[in-house]
């Protein structure tokens, strides 16, 4: 935002950054081989729902379209709404590449419909050898990934592990440099 925009109090939503979602496809090799983080076979994209007629229509059409196109790859899609009024499209597929492709297709549909600025994030859950969950979150506005590792205890994060993951994956993934933007997503339905 420029200086003049600040003075004039202008407001537009930031458009999604250039899509770097597919960086996850190649990074998964390292995640699996070197860090023994395995996909849980699920991934999700979360976006804001608008109470407008054409948005409702778009969401319905998108869901049908995605269901049809991902069926060939054996991916199933389900829609969930969380308590904050955001819509989660959860994909289930044992093949990781198909998950990334599916998420990208949904993002593309939303953008085509003119609602790309309503997408918040894509969420990739992984499991380590001890069956603990580790999330990689992709922020669409920033075009960057960051790790999110819930720790035991109420709404606690394992910051040590998150920072280690950042160091381990820096070469492979575009990582969000500002730590204040590593927003957690508690209770993600994936």
């Amino acid at each position, binding site marked *: 935002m420029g200086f003049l925009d600040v003075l*004039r109090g202008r407001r537009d939503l930031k458009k999604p950054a250039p899509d770097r979602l597919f960086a996850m496809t190649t990074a998964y090799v390292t995640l699996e081989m070197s860090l023994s983080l395995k996909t849980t076979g699920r991934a999700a994209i979360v976006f804001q729902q608008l109470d*407008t007629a054409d948005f409702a229509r778009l969401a319905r059409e998108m869901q049908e379209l995605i269901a049809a196109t991902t069926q060939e790859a054996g991916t199933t899609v389900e829609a969930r709404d969380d308590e904050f009024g955001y819509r989660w499209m959860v994909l289930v597929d044992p093949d990781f590449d198909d998950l990334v492709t599916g998420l990208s297709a949904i993002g593309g549909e939303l953008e085509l419909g003119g609602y790309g600025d309503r997408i918040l994030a894509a969420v990739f859950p992984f499991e380590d050898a001890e069956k603990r969950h580790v999330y990689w979150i992709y922020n669409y506005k920033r075009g960057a990934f960051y790790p999110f590792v819930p720790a035991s205890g109420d709404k606690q994060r394992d910051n040590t592990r998150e920072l280690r993951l950042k160091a381990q994956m820096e070469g492979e993934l575009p990582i969000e440099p500002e730590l204040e933007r590593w927003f957690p997503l508690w209770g993600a339905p994936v």
Partner: protein
Amino acid sequence: MPPPRKIGRDPGLTARMTLTLFLLGALYVVLIVALLAAGVGAVFVALIAGGLLLAQLFTSDKLALHAMGAREVSPQEAPELHAMVERLCVQADLPKPRVAVAQTAMPNAFALGRSPKSATVCATTGIMELLSPAELEGVMAHELSHVQNRDVLVMTIASFFATVAAYIVQFGFFFGGGDGDDDNAGFLVLLLVSLAVYALSFFLLQALSRYREFSADRGAGVITGRPSALSSALMKIAGTMDRIPERDMRAASELSAFYIFPPKVKSVLGSLFSTHPPLEKRIEKLSQLESQLQGRLTQA
């Protein structure tokens, strides 16, 4: 069919705000000229003014939080509020501000801090009980818009010289200009100029504050995509503001610019004196935005 990528702007609002800023700037030039003409050293003026401005920018948020009886809360203490603010921040592309809660039944919310990185958003326990989640989201988005527009910084700088003028006026009344003969006339002129600057800037600042309020309402509607939720929140807050007595409102008056609702809703002495636009106007603007949102399909 590429739909319109932007929710319509409000060029009239931008124009009015720019004009107000310009007039305020012109007024301050007059004050500076008067100060220099009265024989006050230029370096001295610049040093004192700069020092005061910095002090105000760096300490005011902590003082204000303290004055409101607000306390920063951790994600464990207020998980819903934190999660709500986090999602809005992703949507608005802002770093996460500190989140504070004030223990008071008065339904209100405000934003503090000179930059998005040092910002704090605060809600009262009253507002969290009163509003539905969607309405509270609208209110928090309004506060985050203030953060994004850097309204604390803009208003602090804009009102700074008005404060200086006010000091000069007070000083003049207390000391009656001293005892030098030559200085006396000069000082009297300075006193009069300061008085005029103070009076005029007061009205300009109130107008500016109202425009920033409209901007923040609009920003909130764009961020949440639900302008109507903010409308209904404003109406709910207005309903209770009249009934609940003003108990805990000891904060300095310039702070009131960043409340979602001004602490005093008086039978107005003319809207000129108000830091916030009247409720009907705000709701009217929000419903215009709502129709723009709803009309995206037909526009395309």
